[in-house]
């Protein structure tokens, strides 16, 4: 018998769960868990990725599992969209599991076997989210994902800040889950049938489609880190162990993107143009906000968390543009933007996982997360440094790596927007394009800061000289992800061909057929209009570089010597005189001062021990979250008044309630 792709995906999920349970059987057997179970999980992820590639072009398959509640079986469905996100999960999961095999040490917080269980249950839950075909299973998988990741975030639960970060994450995840639940409630349109198949056939009228869309945007936005629900991301990512951060940032945020796409383009039958405008504006605001905050961070994992917020913003802006095009029946343009969205999701999964894993290696080698105490690690950790450089350049959106391709596609889409009939929307384009370009340019700033301060320069602390490079497992993982960044960047046409079935499914057009793309040249509309070929570009640059090197070495005597740095002849330099993370972020802090809630402590000339301190905090925390928290406290105190703790009082309450009900219902 030849198993279908859907059966293989289910088999992979079961395999992950089995691996997880095996970890629970011998929770303290360190070697068994790290050398056997995690590599096995990695192999399963790789198999899943292969199956997903096969399933991308295949017709949708569905099946019903006799699990769950009586009369409420689990519906499963594997179509192109699910397959793409499974591919994303599998391809990055392969590397992250491999990395975990080398990363987890026996002494940290939760027992390794328990981590192994939580980790693999997390993977399985994410895979289940992608193939769920009814709201019931979707919510079960979604909540399992939130819970397992909560326990992973709080691996080092003995530290109070980590417990606090975990709580915040769980809280916002549940507020989001409520919105998603309400969204499904709206989508079933009174039929009482919560399968996605029924929802697809429902034609909601009036304000209901908009209600469903905005509930989805809110609910999935909470998971993705959309403004103003981003607040948990910069807390949870630094708290979690690095492979978990990588998995959360690289893959889990994309489950929210998956959900948003599923609801907007698959379950809802029509899209309204102004949803697109709202999503576009929200996405761009998120992108700018994220990157501005990333530029002033001094904790390397917080910096990456804010950078994730930026990338999610770009993706959501792309979704907004897709909705806009789709609602005006520009299906070709919608296909191009949707391609950009999916491409960027995949790219972000690769480069952000790579960068998070690299910070994990740095963390293990130096026990330091603060950028201001690192530096010069390229000499001690060349593998991590050079592979992280690939990730940083990709994240900065530089050609010929992968981050650039999706940004190129998205910018092309912006340039096509003036063909829309509504002049108001057309006016929006320059502003939106400007915001996007600004965010992308700032991300280069952020990445130079990230890479330069950690890996370049001289070590800012003496103990950095003992930093050790990553181990074999970690190197394999980093190489896999870096290779992904390069290949995704160099062969855009092949990747887009893979993605094209999704375009056909969701917006009913192909992003490739209209243009004159060949395997080497990406030209979405026509070669006269716009074309890009990273491979040729790379070959030309490399050819020029090699030629220059050859010429210089032929005609130049080649004498060079090493000497102390010159630095304008300044003699008394110390490594502390290099820019710190705060110093490097200072210009951004000054220019965008209104964005931050700043507290400065400046030393006076008479201080015996001068102390300089500046913190840049998030306004949302003070303007939105603390008022809500205070309001909740006030309410709780009011409610507290009626809690007397005497049974006779409670009986009186019941009596009056009964009276009131009798009066009302009669």
């Amino acid at each position, binding site marked *: 018998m030849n198993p279908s792709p859907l059966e293989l995906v289910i088999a992979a999920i079961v395999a992950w769960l089995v691996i997880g349970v095996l970890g629970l059987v011998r929770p303290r057997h360190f070697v068994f868990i790290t050398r056997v179970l995690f590599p096995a999980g990695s192999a399963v992820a790789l198999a899943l990725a292969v199956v997903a590639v096969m399933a991308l072009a295949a017709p949708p398959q569905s099946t019903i599992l006799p699990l769950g509640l009586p009369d409420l079986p689990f519906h499963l469905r594997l179509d192109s969209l699910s397959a793409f996100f499974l591919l994303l999960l599998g391809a990055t999961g392969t590397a992250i599991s491999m990395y975990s095999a080398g990363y987890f040490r026996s002494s940290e917080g939760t027992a390794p076997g328990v981590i192994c269980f939580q980790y693999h249950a997390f993977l399985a839950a994410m895979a289940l989210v992608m193939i769920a075909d009814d709201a019931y299973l979707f919510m079960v998988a979604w909540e399992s994902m939130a819970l397992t990741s909560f326990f992973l975030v709080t691996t080092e639960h003995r530290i109070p800040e980590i417990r606090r970060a975990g709580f915040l994450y769980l809280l916002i995840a549940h507020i989001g889950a409520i919105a998603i639940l309400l969204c499904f409630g709206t989508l079933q349109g009174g039929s009482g049938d919560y399968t996605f198949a029924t929802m697809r056939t429902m034609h909601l009228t009036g304000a209901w489609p908009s209600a469903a869309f905005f509930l989805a945007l809110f609910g999935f936005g909470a998971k993705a880190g959309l403004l103003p629900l981003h607040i948990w991301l910069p807390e949870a990512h630094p708290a979690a162990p690095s492979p978990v951060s990588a998995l959360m940032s690289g893959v889990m945020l994309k489950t929210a993107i998956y959900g948003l796409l599923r609801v907007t383009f698959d379950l809802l039958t029509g899209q309204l143009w102004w949803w697109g405008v709202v999503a576009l504006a929200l996405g761009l605001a998120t992108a700018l906000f994220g990157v501005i905050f990333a530029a002033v961070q001094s904790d390397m994992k917080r910096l990456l968390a804010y950078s994730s917020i930026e990338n999610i913003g770009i993706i959501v802006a792309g979704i907004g543009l897709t909705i806009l095009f789709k609602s005006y029946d520009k299906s070709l343009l919608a296909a191009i933007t949707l391609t950009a969205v999916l491409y960027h999701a995949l790219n972000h999964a690769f480069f952000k996982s790579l960068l998070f894993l690299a910070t994990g290696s740095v963390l293990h080698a130096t026990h330091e997360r603060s950028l201001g105490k690192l530096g010069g690690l*390229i*000499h001690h950790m060349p593998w991590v440094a050079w592979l992280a450089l690939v990730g940083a350049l990709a994240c*900065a*959106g*530089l*050609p010929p790596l992968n981050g650039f391709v999706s940004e190129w596609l998205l*910018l092309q889409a912006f*340039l096509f927007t*003036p063909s829309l009939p509504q002049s108001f929307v*057309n006016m929006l*384009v*320059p502003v939106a*394009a*400007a915001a996007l*370009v600004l965010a*992308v*340019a*700032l991300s*280069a700033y952020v990445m*130079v*800061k990230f890479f*330069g301060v950690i890996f370049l*320069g*001289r070590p800012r602390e003496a103990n950095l000289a003992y930093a050790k490079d990553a181990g074999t497992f970690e190197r394999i993982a980093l190489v896999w992800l870096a290779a992904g960044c390069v290949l995704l960047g160099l062969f855009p046409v092949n990747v887009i061909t893979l993605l094209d079935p999704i375009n056909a499914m969701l917006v009913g057009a192909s992003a490739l057929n209209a243009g004159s793309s060949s395997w080497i040249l990406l030209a979405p509309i026509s070669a*006269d209009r*716009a*074309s*890009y*070929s990273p491979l*040729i*570009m790379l070959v*030309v*640059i490399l050819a*020029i*570089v090699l030629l*220059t090197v050859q010429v*210089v070495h032929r*005609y*130049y*005597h080649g004498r*060079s*010597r*090493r000497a*102390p*740095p*010159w*630095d*304008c002849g*300044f003699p008394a*330099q110390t*490594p502390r*005189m*290099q*820019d710190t993370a705060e110093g*490097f972020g*200072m*210009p*951004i802090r*000054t*220019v965008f001062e209104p964005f931050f809630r700043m507290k400065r402590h400046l030393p006076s000339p008479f201080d015996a021990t001068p102390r300089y301190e500046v913190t840049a905090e998030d306004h949302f925390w003070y303007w939105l979250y603390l008022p809500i928290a205070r309001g909740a406290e006030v309410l709780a105190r009011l409610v507290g008044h009626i809690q007397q703790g005497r049974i006779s009082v409670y009986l009186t309450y019941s009596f009056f309630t009964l009276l009131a009900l009798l009066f009302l219902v009669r």
Partner: protein
Amino acid sequence: MTLSGFFSQFLQLAIALVLAPLLVGWVNKCRAWLSNRTAPSILQPYRTIRKLFFKDAVIAENASSIFRLTPYIVFGAMCCAAAIVPSLATDLPFARAADTIALVGLFALARVFMSLAAMDIGTSFGSLGARREMFVGFLAEPALLMVLFTASLISGSTSLPSIVDTFAHRELAIYPSLAFAGVAFVMVSLAENARIPVDNPTTHLELTMIHEAMLLEYSARHLALLEWAAALKLFNYSCIGLALFFPFGIVVSGTDWLALLGAAPALIAKLLAGGFALALIETLSAKMRIFRAPEFLGTAFMLAVLAMLVNLLLGA
């Protein structure tokens, strides 16, 4: 992909490599004239580069490979850009591989590597220069892209040769959007090429330098390559400006390749005029404090966005 295409491609790259230092020499000469100094020879940049190539390289003790690789990467990126920008002809086979967005990406690649190399040694000046360069870049890069987008919207293409083809064939009329874009482009070019009022190419005063601060630790062949790359960058920016706003004389596609013989003198004439204008701007303006730069570049950015808006409103 034709033979004449390859011919014009290589000719253009060669001319860029040869003319770029000459352009810098010309600008320096004009600057000297305008400030009543004795002018250095127009060939002085060549002599500097030649001299540097035959010196012993001194590399800081803790420099990593990034430091040694950067001059080659920056030089390669600038050559690559010179191959895309139509300075003589628009029949450029390589320009298919990279449109205007990729061109801005190439400049960004060079900038990021320059900044990383400057941080590599771990001196105070190096990281100061890197920080300032990225600071100027994050505003200049979007502004440049917006200028190019305005041109793309008018011509319906993001490929530079196609844009020039369209512009060269249109009737001689003033496009209001291009006027805005032109002002924005001049401002961006000043900032990107480390010119007064944003930076000063001749300074070594720590409070003012940006580009020079990043080059401090370089010597000999590496420095020569970087100087040459900086000259190429100025040449590229000049050619982008000329192609967008004065496309006359560029051999558009479909004409005989012998017309290249006429294009070269036209290019040189335009560059001489442009170089003089640059020297004039530099002489007439004063260096700004670094924190005034965001205002300057923010103005450029806003002008470029306005150009796009005007283009959409008026359709011109």
